[in-house]
């Protein structure tokens, strides 16, 4: 069936803004339920044949992740009293294309654990932070985690390491890489449990898509055989096949308008040539990610919503969390060849919650990785990890050895939600459309940094346990300066005074506006948020469809 086509001046049932992890799922679920849906995506619809191993284009020329070079500058500062400066690249990193960052992500699909949803009750609140329980439990979300597994295709191995699951993985785990073997051996030596990483990458053919061919250009790149289960090759094609969904690419939304009753009724956007369009809508689902969603809410301010749309709580843009990340690189006597196959194949979660006796809050997991994602240019740019040389013969000889002989044990950790860490509109810098640039204000809570140190130390011990010849650990000792997990900026909660959306992702303030993306997360989880973003999307879609059925939108 042909893709739907709707006139802009007649209201469609839903406009979905963004087509990534959440937007792709919303489009598919709502259109499958029979609603008319228009999806607005600012980037292009890239297909497997469009993806390359071109490291220069993808990692240096912002082909997928737009920044200053593409007319989308971002600014950064540590504290609110400082003036933010333009930062090369993008402190808030995400792919601009159909499928969003599920196109270029590593595919790590960890579920949260039951503790993540009720940690403030179990562990106690943390002074000076907005650390809180979620308004939902793991049990409420579990059916939707399982739905993600089966709808998009996840490879993994069920076991005691998993939080409770109602159904097995649809696909067996991916083959272990050398770094994963070393992690498994280290874990055994230290009494930890290493298990196969659950990934949104196909270990076998599934739903008309082929298995992974282990090409190695995975994390940061689009998959050239569609074995990575991005929403661009799973949800979006299904949405289009319903005949109810129209996907409009190259459409950058400028604002959401509301009617006299304060209901969202129109989405205004630019075509690539700058022409302005406006689509009428009965309801709007905003899935633009934890950076763009708050920006759009701020840009949609009006007399009725002077602090930005849906922001009576003042929480829009606040509580930005990136997840901590750490790296411990070890040089080994034999070949690791991290440049082949996927990003990671083994995980340990023995420190999911660090014992409070250490005196700080935190937790996370460690997975087996490659040197600089297994990318030749990135590895060389970084400089000799073990030689310390950055140019000259020593640099060159160091590279020759370390590229193929390095395994990295990387930590993925908690971030605490703080009001002072946020996304706002830059008062001076504008993007190519003349919109205020995204401004990030961010300094980690001391416990985030203590957690990163803890995980670096554990990873270094593991490298020793498995015979690394040399090792180098690193983490953001002075605080992170950006991230690709854009979390917390439209947090979910029962109390309209302290949260932006309710437990079904509906705006507390605007009844026919839904925000579904990483911004919804109340706490950061342990480092891999996409699975939870996707599960929340399936759950929100279920409830939106039910609410529409009883005329309650």
């Amino acid at each position, binding site marked *: 069936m042909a893709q739907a086509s709707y006139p802009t001046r007649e209201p469609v049932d839903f406009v979905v803004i963004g087509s990534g992890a959440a937007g792709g799922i919303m489009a598919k679920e709502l259109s499958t339920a029979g609603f008319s849906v228009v999806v607005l995506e600012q980037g292009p619809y890239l297909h497997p044949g469009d993806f390359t191993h071109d490291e220069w284009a993808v990692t240096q020329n912002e082909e997928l992740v737009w920044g200053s070079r593409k007319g989308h500058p971002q600014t950064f500062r540590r504290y609110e009293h400082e003036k933010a400066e333009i930062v090369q690249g993008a402190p808030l990193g995400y792919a601009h294309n159909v499928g969003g960052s599920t196109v270029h992500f590593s595919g790590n699909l960890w579920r949260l654990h039951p503790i993540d949803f009720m940690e403030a009750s179990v562990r106690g609140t943390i002074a000076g932070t907005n650390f809180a329980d979620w308004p939902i439990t793991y049990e409420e979300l579990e059916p939707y985690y399982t739905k993600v597994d089966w709808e998009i295709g996840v490879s993994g191995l069920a076991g005691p390491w998993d939080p409770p699951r109602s159904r097995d993985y649809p696909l067996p785990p991916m083959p272990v890489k050398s770094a994963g*073997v070393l992690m498994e051996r280290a874990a055994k030596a230290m009494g930890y449990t290493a298990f196969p990483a659950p990934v949104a990458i196909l270990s076998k053919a599934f739903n008309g*898509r082929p298995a992974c061919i282990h090409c190695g250009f995975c994390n940061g790149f689009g998959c*050239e055989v569609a074995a990575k289960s991005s929403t661009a090759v799973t949800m979006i094609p299904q949405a289009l096949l319903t005949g109810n969904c129209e996907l409009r690419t190259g459409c950058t939304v400028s604002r959401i308008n509301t009617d006299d009753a304060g209901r969202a009724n129109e989405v205004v956007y630019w075509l690539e040539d700058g022409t302005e369009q406006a689509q009428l809508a009965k309801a709007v689902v905003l899935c633009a990610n934890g950076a763009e969603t708050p920006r759009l809410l701020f840009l949609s301010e009006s007399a009725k919503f002077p602090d930005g749309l849906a922001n009576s709580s003042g929480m829009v843009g606040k509580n930005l969390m990136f997840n901590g990340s750490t790296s411990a690189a070890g040089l080994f006597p034999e070949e690791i060849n991290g440049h082949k196959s996927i990003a990671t194949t083994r995980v340990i979660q023995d420190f999911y919650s660090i014992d409070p006796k250490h005196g700080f809050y935190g937790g996370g997991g460690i997975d087996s990785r490659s040197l600089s994602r297994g990318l030749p240019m990135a590895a*060389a740019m970084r400089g000799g990890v073990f030689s310390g040389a950055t*140019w000259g013969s020593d640099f060159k000889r160091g590279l020759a050895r370390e*590229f*193929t002989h390095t395994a990295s044990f990387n930590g993925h950790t908690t971030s605490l939600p703080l009001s002072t860490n946020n996304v706002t509109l830059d008062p001076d810098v504008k993007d190519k459309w003349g919109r205020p640039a995204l401004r990030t204000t961010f300094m980690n809570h001391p416990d985030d940094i203590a957690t990163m140190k803890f995980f670096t130390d554990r990873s270094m011990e593991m490298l020793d346990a498995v015979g690394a010849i040399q090792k180098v650990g690193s983490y953001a000792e002075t605080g992170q300066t950006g991230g690709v997990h854009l979390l917390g900026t439209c947090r979910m909660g029962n109390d309209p005074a302290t949260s932006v959306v309710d437990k079904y992702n509906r705006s507390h303030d605007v009844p026919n506006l839904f925000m579904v993306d990483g911004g919804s997360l109340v706490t950061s989880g342990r480092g891999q948020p996409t699975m939870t973003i996707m599960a929340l999307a399936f759950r929100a879609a279920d409830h939106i469809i039910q609410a529409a059925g009883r005329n309650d939108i």
Partner: protein
Amino acid sequence: MNDIQITRRLFLQKTADAARTSLFVLSLPTIMTSSAFASEAMQMASTTLSVLNADEALEFTAIAARIIPTDETPGATEAGVIYFIDHVLGTSRTEALAPMREGLSALQAQAQSTYGIATFSSLQPEQQDALLTAIEDTAFFGTMRYMTIAGMFSLPEYGGNRNHAGWDLIGFDHAHVWSPPFGFYDAEYMAKGE
């Protein structure tokens, strides 16, 4: 070169269109054909300069040769890094062309005042290293290092990484398909049934 690049683009476009029309995507043989076609285009990398003149190219080549020297293995010179640098200064990094020329002039002035020779490429390697070490923290050197490394390890179609000199140096095999085992330890793991 232009003809081949256009043909390749059309080819990729066609395969993309094929994928677009159905839920089925590129099969393995299509990918193999596509990458073989791409390799063919890569062999046609340019050997002429577009924005740098011969003197500048000689100087930049000499600097790149100290960043990734030629020793027991090929270095930036053999990899044709200069053609990459020339290409990007004329395309995606045009804003760097003027500062790079200024930086080169400053380096040459330093060569003149220190060694009495105004061409960097005429100096002895030790003299070159001494001058570069002194400017290690400058934007000029940072950009030279950046472009040299990028040229060494990028796809050969950009002009550098000739004969895969960069990739061979670090043991990177460029292929689109691998199957396990990928390295020594997973091979051992499979053999032992760990």
